[in-house]
């Protein structure tokens, strides 16, 4: 039993870090563009399929594929922001609807390009670590490390660089930042692109672990939103932590309780947190 729990703790942390990186994208974009962009899930979908496509069809080595994909998806995110979300700034609901529309457009395009046949990428790293009866696939471990690294780098970037500080300031207090002369427009577009890139990365990582179908985006988007709210919008490390909490809740949840209710365990925790800390665990509001 202890092994089971320990195993799911580790697994939950790793799976959660995948939620966490999307949560970070959600947190940043909604903190700065004022729109909770459901299309981020679709960006992850595109990222996953692109990675698989590059790797299987053109034999691009996985690490290079990841970098390529992040670039492409960032571009998509940028275009989407300039064409659509610029017009729904700070109208949360309209932005939400537009992003939902964008999701079905992207999913349709994915259908047309890659059909609904489930795809499965050749794993980049195979095999497992076994420590005291606890089994962890090597690829999962690698993914966890990469994602946590990326989040920490984002944090440093946001706290050390000028652009980052501007973004951070803006997320805390838009008016003040505007007064400080932060170029709001460019900042928002930049963050939108960066958020998309994070989702592209999440997609690449996803592709090495799980099978691809055109409907994966919605689920991970939901987990991302849960994670972001759990942590509180605008908190970087918090977003990762929020995602991990959800992952662990699900992992341990389905050790003791039926797997059929898997999605409920994270939600339940979220609701409880929101009721007693409406601004989330790390939010200031």
């Amino acid at each position, binding site marked *: 039993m202890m092994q089971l729990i320990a195993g799911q703790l580790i697994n939950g942390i790793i799976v959660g870090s995948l939620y966490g990186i999307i949560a970070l994208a959600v947190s940043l974009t909604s903190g700065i563009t004022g729109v909770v962009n459901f299309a981020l899930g679709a960006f992850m979908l595109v990222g996953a399929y692109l990675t698989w496509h590059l790797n299987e069809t053109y034999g691009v080595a996985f690490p290079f594929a990841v970098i390529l994909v992040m670039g492409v998806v960032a571009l998509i995110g940028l275009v989407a922001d300039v064409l659509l979300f610029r017009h729904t700034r700070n109208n949360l609901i309209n932005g939400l609807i537009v992003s*939902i*529309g964008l999701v079905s457009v992207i999913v349709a395009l994915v259908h047309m390009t890659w059909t609904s046949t489930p795809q499965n990428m050749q794993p980049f790293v195979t095999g497992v670590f076994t420590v005291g009866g606890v089994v962890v696939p090597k690829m999962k471990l690698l993914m966890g490390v990469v994602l946590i690294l990326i989040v920490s780098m984002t944090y440093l970037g946001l706290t050390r660089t000028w652009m980052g500080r501007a973004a951070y300031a803006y997320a805390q207090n838009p008016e003040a930042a505007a007064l400080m002369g932060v170029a709001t427009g460019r900042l928002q577009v930049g963050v939108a692109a960066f958020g998309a890139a994070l989702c592209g990365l999440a997609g690449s990582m996803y592709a090495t672990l799980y099978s691809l179908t055109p409907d994966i985006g919605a689920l991970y988007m939901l987990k991302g939103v849960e994670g972001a709210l759990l942590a509180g919008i605008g908190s970087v490390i918090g977003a990762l932590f929020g995602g991990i909490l959800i992952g662990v809740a699900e992992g341990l949840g389905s050790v003791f309780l039926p797997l059929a209710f898997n999605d409920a365990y994270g939600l339940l925790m979220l609701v409880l947190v929101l*009721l007693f800390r409406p601004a989330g665990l790390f939010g200031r509001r």
Partner: protein
Amino acid sequence: MRVLLLVLCGAVALVPALTANNLVLSVLTFTFILGILAVSFNLIYGITGQLTLFHAAAFGVGAYATHLSMAHWSISFWLGSAFAMGCVAVVSLLLGIVCFRFRLKEFYFAVVTLAFAEMIRLVVMNWHGLTNGSLGINFNLKPSVGVPGVGALVIEGPVRWYYFSLACVVVIVLAYQLVVNSWIGNAFKAIRLNEDVAASLGLNAFRYKLLSFVLGSMGASFAGGLYSHYMGFVDPHLLDINQSLAILSMALIGGTGSVAAPVVGALVVTALPHLIDLNAEWRLLIYGLILILTILLMPQGIVGSLQRLRKHA
């Protein structure tokens, strides 16, 4: 608005005379039933400004409760849906108290209601003993209405269903219209426009938000009962998240500004797949584009835009 509404009903009342085409009838019947759903959603979202994603759950629970109570206690459709509305009222009351007491607003309210809806869906999925889980339940129970002189008239066949659902949607819309025109409606609007002012003027926002949420959810429950009896079966898909999004797009496409406008949205959403005969991917693409363009080009929805055109002309 009410005049427009009557005109609309007048036009619609003639349809069975105009066409023997049962397909048009069934599309319109679905439109009316889903119209009730969209209208009740709009009371909460469009009028009172609270974005609930609990609506599909209210719809599904209503459908199940109506059927189960009818089947188990062999009561009439009306008693059944009354019971269902009672259940949904209680559930939404509790949920509403939790959300509004803790001052959850906008996106936070949306997500928490979504969370509860999802949990309820999972319960329905897994409570095999009561709901028969994901297999759903088939039944052949029909509503019936007492008509003076004729006696009990069983609702079956396209034409009867058409007029029955039409009558239902008209009654519901008028009922909501009465509420919205009253001081209660003023309170709802005030809360949507500026909750702080409303409070400073001695308006108990909590109470009125709760009222709106419960009234709307009860409408959804009634729509659920109708829907399941028109289809002759219930299954957990009624409670899907996507249902809530479909309801939202109905309201938006029709227009959130007035009580009845979402019915038009329901018509568009229901009829569209049968109007544009494209392969599935293209249809998905177009659906997405419609959502985007509606928001960007006519945020007041079809009805709102038409009204504006009339004003300017």
